[in-house]
């Protein structure tokens, strides 16, 4: 079922910009079109680019916010990527705040 929805109507997750648009819905209760526009503006891309895996892989590598590729030379992943996403989208991400508190790091 998850596969069917992802192919029929899904945004594509980390492969594209689906996780970023989802974050704005969850963090700020933004409606879909507002969340897409907010993310597109922050990334400096067009709305249609948000679900283009070719464009988004380059954008995500450049911004260092994780892609689905995890091999040699890969972009930041996991908590590293989320620290960059929090700054990029101007939101607080709970686990990033916890990470800062536990390590004493400020960024």
């Amino acid at each position, binding site marked *: 079922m998850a596969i*069917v929805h992802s192919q029929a109507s899904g945004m594509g997750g980390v492969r594209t910009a689906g996780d970023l648009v*989802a974050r704005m*819905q969850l963090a700020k209760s933004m409606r879909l079109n507002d969340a897409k526009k907010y993310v597109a503006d922050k990334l400096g891309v067009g709305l249609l680019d948000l679900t283009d895996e070719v464009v988004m892989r380059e954008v995500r590598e450049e911004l260092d916010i994780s892609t689905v590729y995890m091999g040699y030379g890969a972009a930041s992943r996991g908590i590293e990527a989320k620290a960059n996403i929090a700054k990029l989208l101007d939101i607080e991400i709970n686990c990033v705040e916890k990470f800062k508190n536990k390590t004493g790091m400020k960024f």
Partner: protein
Amino acid sequence: MVLTRMGDGAFVEMTESEVRKEVEAGVEEAVKKAKCPPLTEDDIKRLIEIICEPRKFVSVERGNELVLTYDSQPLKFTRLGLPIAMPQILQTYERGLMADTLEMAYVHYSAKPVKMIFPEEQYVVAETLLTTTPALLYGVMPNMPMYTKPDGPCENASELLPKGLIKEAQEAQLEAADLLERDLLLLGEAMYEAGADGLDLDTTAAGGDAEFYACLRAIEKLKERYPNMSIEVGMAGEFVLGFHGSLEYKGERLAGMYPHDQCRMIAKAGGNIAGPAINTNTRKSFPWNLARAVTMCKYAAEVSPIPVHANVGMGVGGVPMQITPPIDCVSRASTAMAEIGKMDGL
């Protein structure tokens, strides 16, 4: 001829005019039950096109994609008999299944039993958060009936009501609702402290209006304590059952609420995403069920102040009641909910 299905998943052949009749009847039923506006003629034409498309798989046009949230991702792998640990299941969803969001959950998926294993569940949440990128919610079913006899300490309203003990049944439900509310507060606190982005309450109000009441109160209190906590509320059905019958939240009676009112109440409590669940009638056709579900959901999205993610799965959102939901129906329901229902997500 158009090859489509019944609500139980069995194939059925119809002419295009028969499909139209089924769609119109489904819309009419939604309007009658939920007291919502009908789909427009353009919506109906588009819905018929989607249903009658000869290809097995249908998808949205580029630009019409929406956000996907989930119910219990680990459970889906457990059901397949795949012995994979929960953090790895969520990594698979992120990197292999194009998930926009992640959801950690215990296999029982009810709030009450999770309380016994908070430390173990906090561990998998904290561990997974280090290695994954999308927002991660912790999901549970409120499942208020677990607090009633024989599974819990409270008297069972479904045994008291047939005996005419209305007041006693209402009191028993309030007692169970109080226990549920307390557990949801404990759960929310535990998972937020572990680093989760928030909670997903799934199949909310399965136990009726008192369960919905407990969830709304818990959301309100959690948001007071953790304003940045994200909370998604998926409903159990299209209609809040009035087992109690008199409960109100912020001045509005909960019993009998349909999706558009359910979404408003979730927003009032402080929820971030509302998830209507429109039940599938197995004796009716897929076109009838899908038209009915899209009509109710479209109105819910119009009046809701927060994003609406329709439940579109086994026996809800127009999809046939099958443990292996047919791909032809799921892809059509997914497309129709995005392009006609104007959902923010599924």
